């Protein structure tokens, strides 16, 4: 049995070597993607474009403008004369936030009976960005109002003093969160790509028939297809971890062996998914498009872009089935928090159970489609 599997694995590697373009891509593109995405997602959101319509033109209104510009999140890029021009800037997407200071602003500020108003208009078409811009502008204005009223900022001791300690990432470095997640995504993409094609390709090219007439059992066929994908996936993982640790300075606080072990489980589960898809699809085109649909859904439920606990209950249950979600928790836990198996075993078990189910389905499905 071992010999037969070995021969099949050998055949797969010969095919991969012949297709050197693919082999080269598998080894280089993931590293490039990691570097590109990590550098793009690690910078904080700042220097959002602001347009200021200052109709008051007094020393106070200029102080308002300066205090807005001093916020890291905001950058004053336009000084339109009218609200109409500001509207055009918002329409074109050239600016995120328009600040309007009306005539008589400074005069109103002098009279205690009146309130001087500053109007903020945000482009709500991206709510996240609008929230950040509005929050920053509001904070700048509140600070300024305090100064103008002669209150020294936070001079008084509050009866309750909040002392904050930040664990694992005291400098609030965003890349500590994003880089391990990207490592997980990339290992996911690579294994699923390699595994999902195998059988569909043989079927499409008619070589599956040849494999069937060989003295290979179904299990041997699946295992033989899985091993090359496993090797490619683990190789990629090693590459990614090296780049993450030495290139991006992500700490490795837990046990590397534990991470490797759990990655093996994850990769095996992904291969199960891949072979399952490969088995139900009749052509490679179908298999690939199915993988894309699955990958999109998996990514959404991975807990990276949206925290799982914020999802409605029904979707949370659904997310439990997605192996990527557990794997990202494991990656983060081991690398950043130094978590051990006692903290992570539930995630490992969840992954393993889904994996076994999928592999069983894949083998069963394969036997049906072969007959």
């Amino acid at each position, binding site marked *: 049995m071992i010999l037969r599997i070995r021969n099949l694995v050998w055949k797969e590697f010969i095919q991969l070597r012949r297709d050197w373009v*693919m082999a080269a891509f598998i080894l280089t593109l993931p590293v490039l*993607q990691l570097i590109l995405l990590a550098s793009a997602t690690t910078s904080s959101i700042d*220097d959002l474009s602001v347009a200021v319509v200052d109709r008051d033109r007094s020393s106070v209104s200029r102080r308002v403008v300066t205090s807005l510009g001093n916020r890291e999140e905001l950058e004053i890029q336009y000084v339109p004369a009218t609200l109409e021009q500001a509207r055009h800037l*918002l329409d074109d997407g050239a600016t995120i936030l328009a600040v309007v200071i009306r005539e008589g602003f400074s005069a109103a500020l002098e009279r205690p009976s009146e309130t001087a108003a500053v109007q903020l*208009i945000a482009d709500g078409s991206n709510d996240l960005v609008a929230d950040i811009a509005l929050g920053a502008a509001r904070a700048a*204005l509140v600070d300024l109002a305090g100064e103008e009223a002669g209150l020294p900022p936070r001079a008084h001791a*509050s009866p309750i003093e909040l002392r904050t300690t930040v664990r694992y990432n005291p400098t609030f470095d965003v890349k500590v*969160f994003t880089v391990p997640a990207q490592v997980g995504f990339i290992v996911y993409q690579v294994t699923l790509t390699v595994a999902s094609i195998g059988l569909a390709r043989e079927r499409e090219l008619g070589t599956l028939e040849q494999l069937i007439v060989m003295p290979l059992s179904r299990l041997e066929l699946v295992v033989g297809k899985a091993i090359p994908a496993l090797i490619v996936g683990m190789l990629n993982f090693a590459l990614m971890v090296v780049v993450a640790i030495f290139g991006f300075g992500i700490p490795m606080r837990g046990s590397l062996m534990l991470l490797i072990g759990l990655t093996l489980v994850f990769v095996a589960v992904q291969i199960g998914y891949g072979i399952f898809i490969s088995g139900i699809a009749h052509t490679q*085109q179908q298999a690939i498009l199915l993988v894309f649909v699955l990958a999109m859904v998996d990514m959404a439920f991975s807990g990276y872009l949206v925290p799982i606990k914020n999802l409605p209950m029904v979707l949370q249950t659904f997310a439990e089935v997605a192996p990527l979600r557990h794997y990202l928790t494991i990656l983060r836990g081991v690398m950043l928090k130094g978590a051990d198996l006692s903290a992570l075993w539930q995630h490992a078990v969840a992954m393993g159970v889904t994996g076994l189910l999928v592999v069983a389905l894949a083998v069963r499905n394969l036997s049906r489609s072969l007959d």
Partner: protein
Amino acid sequence: MSLQRMLVVARKELTHITRDMRLFVLVTLAPAFLLITLSYVFALDVERVDIGVQNRDNTSLSRELVSHITADGDFVVVAWLGPSQRIEPLFTRGKADMVLVIPRGFAKTVLDGDSAPVQCVVDGVDAVAASQSIAILEGRVNAFVAKVARSRGGLGAEALAGTRVLEVKDRAWYNKALKSLMSIVPGLLAVVLSMPALALALALAKEKERGSLESLIVTPVRGSEYLGGKLLTYVVSGVVSGMLAWAVATFWFGVPFRGGLVEFLLLTADYVVASMGISLLVATFVRNQQTAMFLVLMIFFIPSFFLSGLLRPVADEPIARAFAYALPSTHFITISRALFLKGVGLAALSGPALALLAIGLVCQGFSLRLFDKKLT
């Protein structure tokens, strides 16, 4: 170049899609299906913070503080820690985002008019979420202080009596309530519409892999006619799935559509042509579907989620920025949001529209040349 021969190729391609029911469903319906699923996940306005509480004081004031913080359900107490219990496991198991430690003698210190330290230990792994939670917590603690001060008098009330001289009025245009759904649906629409482009790359790679390209070469069909015919079919199917996705956005999610439908169709076609330009380029370089898929996934699809301005704005980092603007999805996200929410006309969208056109022309011109060479 003959239009007739091109149409023949287009018809052959259409047969390929319609004959294979699964493929037909995947090409036309998958984007609409994905739009529905993904929108529910991404469009969340609630941000829950799970906290653990170690109340060493255990007085009515300290309990009041906790219930004040958790009153509206944004902060949820997931664990009450005993006085000697360790905090660490809550973080390694990912159960809590933050732990509040209220010291012994808290109430006495506060009522004596001194400052009592409340320890807040935060899991900083997700830096953005952590700093937001801390800011919200600070706000709530301050509000609690003000409330207590008001009800009991004294307690630093004079410090809170600062006169309000400046009023900030804020408004959000285009999406008044700043609902995530309104901005995420038009954005995701661009990402899911990259599926038809992938299908084209696969269709081309398939002919190469199977060797059926050879038999096409001996027919009088020329390279440009062949590519043109394939492109035509997939552009049409892309626009059709664009319409479906539009219907999902407007009727299912109730996103207002303030722009013109004609503009939307026109620019969708523009986007589909540009994204198919990229997939044609990919397909001319590769020899099989697996490589085509891997390339599209790596250079087009995944970056579309992270670089294109779907969630966070396009990065300032020069390489990432250049890459983002080379992606058709970056431009179409801008277009789609502007057409749905802002209701602007073509003039305001000329920038991204022309960028898409340029990407399409360059990629297709390039791949056509490469392809012609290979055929002869």
